[in-house]
């Protein structure tokens, strides 16, 4: 839990935040392609734990949460819905850990509507558990 539920203005609105999604929150949307969606129940929490991916790596997060998938949203998304974005370093020293919580009632669980908003704002950040799109390399000169 954060030491204090105070908005952290040092986290920019465009900060990309990844949320680990347990397999129990997934459901299939296309049995042929295997596409999955997730329930917003994965966002119904007192403190929605996310990670600033620019301060860690997808591989490190996959190692921290083996077998889980990740949704990405931005700090600005959370603020747009009236939520706080608070830095909360993990006990293991991982300073990329950030918590999203309620601004109106700090420390209380997100409402269903707030969870639904966060879920709608988020997108899959991976292709499946531990599978990430290749990072674009430098442009090849045109021959």
């Amino acid at each position: 839990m954060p030491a204090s539920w105070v908005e952290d203005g040092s986290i920019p609105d465009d900060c990309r935040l990844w949320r680990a999604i347990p397999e129990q929150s997934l459901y299939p949307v296309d049995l042929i392609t295997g596409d999955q969606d997730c329930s917003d129940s994965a966002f119904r929490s007192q403190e929605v734990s996310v990670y600033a991916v620019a301060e860690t790596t997808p591989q490190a997060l996959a190692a921290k949460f083996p077998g889980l998938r990740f949704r990405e949203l931005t700090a600005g998304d959370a603020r747009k819905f009236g939520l706080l974005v608070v830095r909360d370093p993990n006990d293991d020293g991982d300073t990329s850990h950030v918590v999203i919580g309620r601004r109106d009632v700090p420390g209380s669980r997100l409402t269903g509507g707030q969870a639904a908003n966060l879920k709608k704002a988020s997108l899959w950040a991976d292709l499946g558990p531990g599978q990430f799109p290749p990072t674009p390399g430098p442009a090849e000169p045109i021959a």
Partner: protein
Amino acid sequence: MMPDAVTTPILEYRNDRQPQVRRRQLGPIVFVQSSWEIEPILAALRLQSLPHGWDRAGSPPPGDAALDRTIEIISSVAKLGFDDITAPHVFPVPGGGVQLEWLQGARRLEVEVLPDGSTQFVTVRDGDPLGEGEYPLWPPTEAKSLFSWLVSGV
């Protein structure tokens, strides 16, 4: 009382639509009236077997209060008389709750059962929340209005 986690529940399907059909949980036996109730009730009961920390954040599996209320809600919805309601998805919620989600096209009705058995609902269309509040366990007409909204968009 909920059955033990290792107990396979027995579900008895009665297609007689009689309002006096007994629906209480009798040990491992759960009476159901509609066939769509079976899978979500089984899914809810399976949540008892989730390991502590299933969400990698220390959450417990749903307890008896949440599961009893979840089954009660599923059964009560089946009594509302809608022929076009499908089975809800059943999800565990961080902290020890259960969430039921009924999907009908672009409309979604979510009912969250908190660990103490209290209930909340949210209506969602195209991913946007429209309304939320305490889920009306009684009177049934209030719950019926939520499901009327759900099926009216199909």
